[in-house]
């Protein structure tokens, strides 16, 4: 395949970035999107230029490192995948591909396609856990959990923290990410003890970090590589109101 790439190049957080054009030949349709970028980088290195910087690690769609806007969509033109699982067969020969970093106030650009997502870690640090120390646990089967609840909890817990939901949202809201964690924990009996405090603290933190508000457009759900559902946001709202009403 022959491809025309328009890639956002930005030296660091303070300097202005711009699109640079590259042409690639002989790309295999069986290559992954990141392997296509590897080919580009190999070409740039041999020419003595700086390669395009992007976050990536597991390359099997689970670590959540990679994330970039590809032709106007987070993780590109396929459903339920992250960029590393996107394959070039989804593009046509001679196509122009526009590649940009996530754009959100809470995720400043570090260089090229790499952004700083520390804000997600700070949200989890605020209260995204069950407060239990090592060694205190009762037998694992002591508390039965309804299969339905466990399954729903698992569906929410599948979030990989890539940031596509924030990038897809016109307000750069983190509601889907936050609601996935709230749901994961609130759906389990172990997580119910601190549910009110958790919801209250996490929403305040999310606002403080500069994420926008939710207007229920559903763009986050549509682009989530793990299929996290909007119903989690409803659950977050319920948990949040419960926490406020309970004072």
């Amino acid at each position, binding site marked *: 395949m022959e491809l025309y790439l328009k890639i956002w190049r930005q030296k660091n957080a303070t300097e202005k970035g711009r699109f640079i054009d590259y042409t690639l030949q002989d790309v295999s349709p069986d*290559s992954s999107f*990141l392997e296509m970028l590897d080919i580009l980088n190999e070409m740039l290195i041999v020419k003595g230029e700086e390669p395009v910087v992007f976050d990536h*690690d597991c390359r099997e*769609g689970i670590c959540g490192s990679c994330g970039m806007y590809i032709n106007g969509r987070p993780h590109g033109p396929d459903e339920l995948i992250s960029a590393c699982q996107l*394959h070039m067969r989804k593009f046509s020969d001679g196509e122009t591909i526009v590649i940009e970093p996530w754009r959100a106030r809470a995720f400043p650009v570090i260089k090229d396609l790499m952004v700083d997502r520390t804000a997600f870690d700070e949200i989890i640090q605020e209260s995204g856990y069950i407060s239990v120390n*090592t060694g*205190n646990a009762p037998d694992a*089967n002591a508390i039965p959990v309804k299969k339905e609840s466990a399954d729903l909890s698992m569906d929410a817990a599948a979030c990989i923290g890539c940031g596509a939901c924030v990038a897809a949202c016109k307000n750069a809201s983190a509601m889907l990410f936050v609601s996935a964690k709230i749901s994961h924990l609130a759906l389990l009996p172990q997580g119910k003890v601190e549910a009110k405090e958790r919801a209250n603290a996490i929403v305040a933190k999310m606002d403080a970090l500069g994420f926008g508000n939710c207007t229920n457009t559903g763009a986050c759900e549509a682009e989530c590589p793990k299929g996290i559902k909007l119903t989690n946001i409803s659950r977050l709202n319920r948990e949040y109101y419960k926490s406020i009403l309970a004072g």
Partner: protein
Amino acid sequence: MTTLDSRIPEGSIDKKWSNFKSSQKLVNPANKRKLDIIVVGTGLAGASAAASLAEMGFKVKSFCYQDSPRRAHSIAAQGGINAAKNYPNDGDSIYRLFFDTVKGGDYRSREANVYRLAEVSNNIIDQCVAQGVPFAREYGGTLANRSFGGAQVSRTFYAKGQTGQQLLLGAYQAQSRQIKLGNIEMNSRMEMLNLVIIDGKARGIIARDVITGEIKRYSAHAVVLATGGYGNVFFLSTMAMGANVTAAWQSHKKGAAFGNPCYVQIHPTCIPVHGEFQSKLTLMSESLRNDGRIWVPKEKEDAEKIRKGEITAADLPEEKRDYYLERRYPAFGNLVPRDVASRAAKERCDAGYGVGPTGLAVFLDFEDAINRLGKDAIEAKYGNLFQMYEKIVDDNPYETPMMIYPAIHYAMGGLWVDYELQTTIPGLFAAGEANFSDHGANRLGASALMQGLADGYFVLPYTIQNYLSDEINTPRFSTDTQEFEEAEKETVGKLEKLFNIKGQKSVDTFHKKLGKIMWEYVGMARTKEGLNKAIDLIKEVREDFYKDLRIPGEMNDLNPELQKAVRLADFLELGELMARDALHREESCGGHFREEYQTKEGEALRNDTDFTYVAGWFFKGEDSDPEVVKEPLNFEAIELKQRNYK
């Protein structure tokens, strides 16, 4: 003469761990606050150790090269975690889990460690459930189990095909809580490049800030390496792209023995290689072997037609298929251990029965399971794996069988540690895949998660106190010492050397060359001749690397190529040590298969008389050969036997 003292506690196998705990030295709460511990790596072992140590009251400094501790590669483990709960009432016990793990490791692991692992396995499940890990459940609300290779019981707990992710998030959340409480100082995008030793003890590390390129010093009373395995020495593996051996290797060069470097695991069920620009291999969980049946065509002509695309798997009726694992190993069938399944696939493909365009693939077929259980049941169990396969290969595994081939997956070898997880450098500990300890020459499925969490939650937080209790009078110390100065200088010198080569070729060019040599000669089947050749070839690549490497960009800036070069420099040294270890071990055991040593049926032939030991390698300088020191393995609870899965 150097020796390796395993420091195994007294008593019968089932009393050793409790004996140790009741007699070990402890650190009181007031003193814990005065002690700093560096934990490098935030996978299952690192995150669980950091969280548990901080909960106890120690001050922890945690490090990872990724942008967030949640991204460590434990997250990619799919299938599950073993424990001896015996919830399914199928006859499991601590002893049986211990026995299966020792046997699965081909009798090359340390009995006392493995027994302890089996003992604490049940606590891990309890702990994870308390943290909110959403394990799969039955309709009655109790936990569900499935079976894995090398076992005849169902002892594997799982969270869909994302067990590693869920366990890691549990540990990450526990760690996050301690970060908030101020007990852990988290240093993300900070890569350890050197170990600092003062008066013979590990006292700190030198790390590079990935974003700014700044070299930084960190001091502590003890250092824990939970830095994972070294599978990326093969270039293509199921490891994350950034996974590397640098922290462990630099510590090795400072005096830590490296245990059994030649023991690497080749996982039988990975998606086959598609071409030259492939960057990594993707695993299809071993859990698939619960329901999938592995086969190749019985006739070579049929295999050839399939390779050419003239016929498909569906065109071959039952009698023309060779379910070779079921044929060779009727008792365990498709659930034989990984080393056995991998070699059997290689044997069929080498003999000309392989499928796929390259002939280096076998079928993993779900037709029978779908007919028996229905498509929905299969989707509920393996949906995300099937989806992953379809995205990568563009083929629907509900309709046509998957094609799979073995790939490098896990390192059983690693830094040598004693029973207390301490390396040969006092104050330097190694946990999880980074150490060599529990899996012998082959790891069973669902045991890596078990070992990582056992080390981090339940072993290291105890054993490290035995060391730290003697450090309570050492005040927090500054990094303005000569030792830190020298270590930093050494690291900067290394970076400058690489950066200033200014040759023509990229890091990956050399890494791919090294990978091919490793796969060809130090991979699934090894010979004396091939290993000697590998040692020579690796030296050639290394020389070329230091002559013709090109790193673009700036040294003191975000520079992924420089990061890769530093890692590859160490892989180029480790690769040679792996070949030496494989050469010296004149037997076949587990993942280490020497063609010269096999039974008439082609099974691995151990030599218990001469090789029942751990090989601990010591670095003796750049221009000298490494020295091997042996830790004899004594089997008291289990009788040494030839493995039999027939």
